[in-house]
């Protein structure tokens, strides 16, 4: 059974329908990359899965249990953690406090401050620094570490490379790849197509609120993805998806 199942999900921002009947599944240990242009509905989909956005219709199942009606903090307790786009640390709190505050759901698991520091060694000297004073890369590492502190079964990553220097992106992805090797289940949104195809086991491309292309990352060509991404020759994309 899949760890996460999304069924016919619809989500709106007022009159704008951002997600239009999306269904997807993520199996335990799988890395699903969501790609798509700005405004395709990726972030809204992730936020709906995490409980930060109330869907208009559809269901979200975690390990077969319906979590659609649960508030965000209850979903965290069930094992869903989101690293939001833009990182959103608590700037008036130290790195250590940002990590410790995520123990609120008291979910048991292997993650401790020490283990986060092992995964992101660049945070070690910055532990007592206020999150507002960190560099972008350090902020992103703290944001991922904070999500890990909730001991998630499913990690949702929204554009972790956004606004980071290339070297910082590289460092974040090195740490992520170690996590993935340890068997973490991840659903990530990534603008960098090459990186998404390399990290993910499966790729889904969103266009205007729908998934228009989905398949194993290894079997997918850049051309297929590019066509789906821009909505060129939709018939070709549909053919590849089926």
């Amino acid at each position, binding site marked *: 059974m899949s760890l996460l199942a999304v069924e016919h999900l619809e989500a709106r921002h007022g009159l704008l329908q951002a997600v239009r009947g999306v269904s997807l599944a993520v199996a335990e240990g799988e890395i699903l990359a969501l790609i798509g242009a700005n405004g395709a509905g990726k972030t809204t989909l992730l936020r709906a899965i*995490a*409980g*930060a956005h109330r869907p208009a219709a559809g269901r979200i199942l975690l390990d077969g249990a319906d979590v659609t009606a649960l*508030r*965000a*903090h209850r979903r*965290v*307790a069930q094992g869903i*953690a*989101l690293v*939001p786009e833009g990182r*959103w640390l*608590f*700037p*008036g*709190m130290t790195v250590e*406090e940002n990590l*410790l*505050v*995520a*123990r*609120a*759901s008291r*979910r048991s698991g292997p993650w401790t401050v020490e283990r986060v520091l092992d995964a992101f060694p660049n945070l070690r000297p910055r532990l007592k620094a206020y999150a507002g004073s960190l560099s972008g890369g350090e902020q992103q590492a703290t944001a991922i570490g*904070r*999500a890990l*502190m*909730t001991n998630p079964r499913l990690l949702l990553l929204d554009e972790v490379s956004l606004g980071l220097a290339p070297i910082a992106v590289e460092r974040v992805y090195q740490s992520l790849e170690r996590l993935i090797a340890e068997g973490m289940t991840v659903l990530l949104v990534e603008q960098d197509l090459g990186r998404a195809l390399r990290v993910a086991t499966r790729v889904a491309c969103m266009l205007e609120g729908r998934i228009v292309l989905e398949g194993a990352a290894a079997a997918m060509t850049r051309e297929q993805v590019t066509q789906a991404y821009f909505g060129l020759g939709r018939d070709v994309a549909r053919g590849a998806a089926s």
Partner: protein
Amino acid sequence: MIWVNQILQGVLLGGYYALLACGLSLMFGVMRIINLAHGDLAVLAAFLVWLLVAQGGMPLLPALFVVLAAMAVLGAVMQRTMLERSLRSGILVPLLSTFGLSIVIENLLFAQFGADTRSLAPAIDTLAYDSWSLTNDIYVGQLSVLIFVVAVALLTGLQLLLSRTALGRALRATAENPDIAELVGINSRAVYAIAAAIAVVTAAIGGTFLAMRATFAPYAGPSQLIFAFEAVVIGGLNSLWGTLIGGIVLGVAQNIGAQLDPHGFLIAGHTVFLLVLAARLVLSSELRSRLRLRREYSP
């Protein structure tokens, strides 16, 4: 020597103001609510303690703890049923709804207890007027010292709670961003309810001390609120130690004003408040423009 005395008494009075103000400060810090019913909640607690002690014959301390427990529940219920809803409608609605709550509490107290002024002074025996003499000229009231000590202890406790405990971290995280706090597993509604409960309990402690050191009546709340509010603004929002300093500055200013002129008590207090407020506005706009400059020049 008379000035030393006035300053000392002002510092002690400042402890009382800080006690009243810390709940106001906490509620604004965590929920961005300016609770206009804060003074009335203090007076309500004073009436409840008075009811149990003077009417019910209970000893003071047990009565106080019963009332504090009841006020904690009241604070949480108030948050869940009223403030939480009003917060969803923008920043003005909580202001209006706490203003409404203030009127409701005042008039319920008036309907129940009438317009008589009352005091808990008889219930605390000689503590109401006993004093220690420091020199031949300077005496400090034991109750004033007790209030000051309780205020400092309460503020220290709250500060430690906020900086050292998991609940404190959850409170601060929720204060910074309730939506993101939810995403790291914090039940923001429960945190808000706890913050409201703590704030109302501190108001109740302040109200009980008001009842011991002076008199209270159903409409006494707003005049207490204004001092608490001034202490918070003088000391700076979001800082509990600032609230203590603000209370002390206000208390000292009032006492020095009263020494200068019999009408000076309130005038001096309000003047200091307005001066600090004006200075803050000027400084903050200057600070903002400087920050903007720095941001423009940084790469």
